[in-house]
């Protein structure tokens, strides 16, 4: 009798679960008995579990490529015609596989954290190891029970049901793993937070390690969240990148917590305050990364009643409740022993206060997003009233939060720690604030802001653009001031201020993003039915319909409408929006055509095509400054990386 690969995979995960439970127990005993070899055995257990998880994942990947449809998961999520790249990514195209991927990444992360800790963190490592392995043990348990990718179906079918066509997009291929890496990286600050609480103190090494992991998590989360937005933009066809839907919100909340944590760590580093705040924030980030998965995976979003139908929801809820309770107990019991480093340092009108206000603004947004996301669920559960909380709700708060952040960035950056006087020359600041005006005017006129019909939208854009430029210039003045403090010794400045420069670049990224978001106020759209040879125009563009062609792209059959785009009589390019069909699905998917310049995108969706009389219906959108949003991602990630590789801070 041969043993099926699926069984091997299942038993590998089972073994991992047992090993992790052993790891938790031995690490806990190691802390109790102060027994180093026992801790080392816990560490080895973690490493072995990591290797076994990699092996289990490799089995699933191998079977995907071997088209082994005796795995129910592979049968449901791939088919014979799937191209190799998407066969690779089909691994995480559904619940079970993405759970295994998350488990795999968390396991790798935990193992790296266990082997690369700083020397002065050695005393808290057993706690770190115990908390990470406890989370992992639960993940393995879930992979065995409710989310098992290794279940089999016999007899083996000849072809699978196919991968969800919406996910057959390069952005969707890398978006989930990027986000998962971000989530798993957040587990390390959480574990260090719990360890610091259990141990009862925070050391300098703690801060350095947590800062690094949080920065790396920030980079991955930023990339992950925005790749999701990019996917929605080029694939879903409603011409936007952010709809504030629960899935998006649940990826934004950990990001906000992570940003908040980075600011709190800064205060902790420079002034010695906010230690307990950092721990709470690290927990919040980690908790909400799982919480997001819970609300998106349990079916609770569509209705409270569908929650009962999915078995995974109950397990998640139990885990989250347990996690929250455990943290609250440990925090309540141990937090009073964690004290500010130097009690003499007070809160004045200084940078640390500005950082605290920044955290307050960020947590305000968190509160709004959490309430908005959970309110329909709670309302339905308690008073039985089904309601919707969608984009307009969040959009009525977001502009004010955005403005507050833009202003806080400028004010916070010119302040200094423990000093209430302004160190930058007031004249320079005045110059910055004044010269922001012409810059904003140039931007507004090139971006054709005056064409916005609604008065509120126009006012919001004018205010937003001016404040963004003012903030940008004030930040730059601050860089100049710091440079002049070092008598323009660029090399010394770069060596000493990598972390600061990282912050500068990331903040510029946020300001660019806000400038990009403001473009939404003046977006235009038009729905038009065109027969072959007919023309339409929008925002100065003339689009003429040249008929449609059919073509084959890998496994998709695409019907493309050809639109010739010209402006002021000059032929520019041709757009080919289309509709595609996959052999394994009855649905029709939009293939979106996007072209444009720096200032706006011309975004065309072909919503229907009648071959009998060669007419098609197009939704044509003008989306201003979307490119700035994509550009800002690079800035933010680059800023995070720059701060991460700060040579000055690496040395203790």
């Amino acid at each position: 009798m041969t043993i099926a690969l699926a069984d091997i995979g299942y038993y590998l995960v089972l073994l991992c679960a047992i090993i992790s439970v052993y790891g938790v127990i031995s690490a806990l005993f190691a802390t109790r008995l102060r027994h180093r070899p026992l801790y080392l055995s816990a560490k080895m257990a973690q490493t072995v579990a990591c290797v076994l998880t990699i092996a289990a994942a490799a089995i699933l990947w191998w079977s995907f490529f071997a088209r082994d449809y005796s795995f129910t998961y592979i049968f449901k999520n791939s088919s014979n015609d799937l191209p190799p790249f998407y066969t690779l990514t089909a691994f995480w195209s559904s619940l079970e596989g993405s759970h295994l991927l998350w488990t795999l990444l968390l396991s790798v992360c935990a193992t790296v954290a266990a082997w690369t800790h700083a020397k002065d963190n050695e005393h808290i490592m057993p706690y770190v190891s115990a908390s990470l392995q406890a989370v992992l043990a639960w993940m393995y348990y879930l992979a065995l029970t409710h989310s098992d990718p290794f279940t089999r179906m016999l007899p083996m079918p000849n072809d699978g049901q196919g991968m969800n066509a919406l996910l057959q997009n390069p952005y969707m291929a890398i978006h989930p793993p990027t986000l998962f890496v971000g989530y798993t990286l957040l587990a390390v600050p959480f574990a260090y937070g719990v360890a610091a609480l259990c141990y009862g103190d925070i050391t300098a090494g703690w801060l350095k390690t947590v800062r690094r992991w949080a920065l790396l998590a920030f980079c991955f989360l930023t990339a992950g969240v925005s790749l999701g937005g990019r996917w929605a933009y080029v694939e879903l066809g409603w011409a936007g990148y952010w709809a504030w839907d629960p899935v998006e919100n649940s990826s934004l909340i950990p990001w906000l917590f992570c940003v908040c944590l980075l600011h709190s760590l800064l205060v902790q580093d420079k002034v010695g305050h906010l230690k307990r705040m950092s721990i709470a924030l690290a927990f919040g980030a980690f908790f909400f990364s799982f919480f997001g998965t819970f609300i998106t995976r349990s079916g609770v979003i569509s209705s409270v009643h569908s929650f009962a139908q999915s078995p995974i929801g109950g397990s998640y809820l139990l885990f989250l409740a347990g996690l929250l309770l455990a943290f609250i107990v440990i925090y309540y019991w141990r937090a009073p022993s964690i004290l500010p480093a130097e009690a003499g340092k007070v809160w004045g009108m200084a940078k640390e206060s500005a950082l605290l206000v920044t955290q307050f603004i960020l947590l305000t947004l968190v509160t709004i997003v959490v309430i908005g996301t959970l309110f329909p669920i709670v309302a339905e559960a308690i008073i039985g009233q089904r309601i919707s909380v969608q984009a307009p709700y969040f959009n009525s708060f977001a502009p004010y939060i955005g403005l507050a952040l833009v202003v806080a960035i400028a004010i916070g950056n010119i302040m200094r720690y423990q000093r209430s006087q302004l160190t930058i020359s007031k004249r320079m600041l005045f110059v910055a604030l004044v010269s922001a005006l012409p810059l904003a005017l140039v931007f507004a006129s090139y971006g054709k802001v005056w064409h916005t019909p609604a008065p509120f939208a126009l006012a919001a854009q004018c205010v937003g653009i001016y404040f963004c430029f003012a903030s940008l210039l004030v930040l730059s003045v601050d860089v100049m001031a710091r440079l002049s403090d070092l008598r323009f010794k660029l090399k010394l400045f770069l060596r000493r201020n990598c972390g600061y420069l990282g912050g500068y670049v990331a903040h510029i990224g946020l300001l660019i993003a806000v400038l990009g978001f403001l473009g939404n106020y003046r977006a235009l759209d038009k729905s038009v039915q065109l027969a072959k040879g007919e023309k339409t125009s929008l925002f100065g563009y003339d689009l003429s319909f040249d008929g449609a062609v059919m073509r084959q792209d890998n496994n998709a059959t695409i019907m493309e409408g050809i639109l010739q785009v010209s402006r002021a009589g000059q032929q520019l390019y041709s757009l080919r929006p289309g509709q595609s069909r996959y052999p394994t699905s009855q649905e029709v998917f939009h293939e979106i055509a996007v072209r444009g310049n720096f200032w706006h995108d011309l975004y065309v969706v072909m919503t229907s095509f009648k071959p009998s009389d060669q007419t098609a219906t197009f939704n044509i959108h003008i989306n201003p400054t979307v490119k700035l949003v994509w550009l800002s991602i690079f800035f933010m990630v680059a800023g995070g990386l720059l701060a991460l590789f700060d040579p000055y801070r690496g040395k203790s």
Partner: protein
Amino acid sequence: MKTLLLVVATFIATLAFAYDRSADIQPQDMFLFEEISKQLRCPTCQGLSAWESETKFANQIKDIVKEKINAGMTRDEIMEFFTTRYGLWIMRVPPSQGVIGLAWWLPLTLICLCLPLLWYFFWRRKRMLGSDGVRSREVLMKQMQAELEVLRRQ
């Protein structure tokens, strides 16, 4: 060849779900139509309005909106028609009255409450401690007396 033709035929058959937003409505009512259908949700999608969505259900809703506008109903009447027919759920945002209004008031109240808390927990210390970072004389005296008290008792 036959299978290819079959694929093409079924492909074309499924393409016929056209929706023309500007059909069956007067140009002067277009703005009202857009405003209303942007406030109603697409029942079968996540996070999209009826205006943005092209699904069957969303198109039906848009048709009803057009019909009601053409029948001379006002914005509020149309909204009321939808909420009595489908429940509050069909609106993209909850109303600000009643228990449901908590969705709006809860975050605002929390923010307003947190500001004094923030002050209480952080900047309050400035008064307890002197401005130059040294504990003020009164606080120091109090602490020393408390410690003396402890010593006396021993």
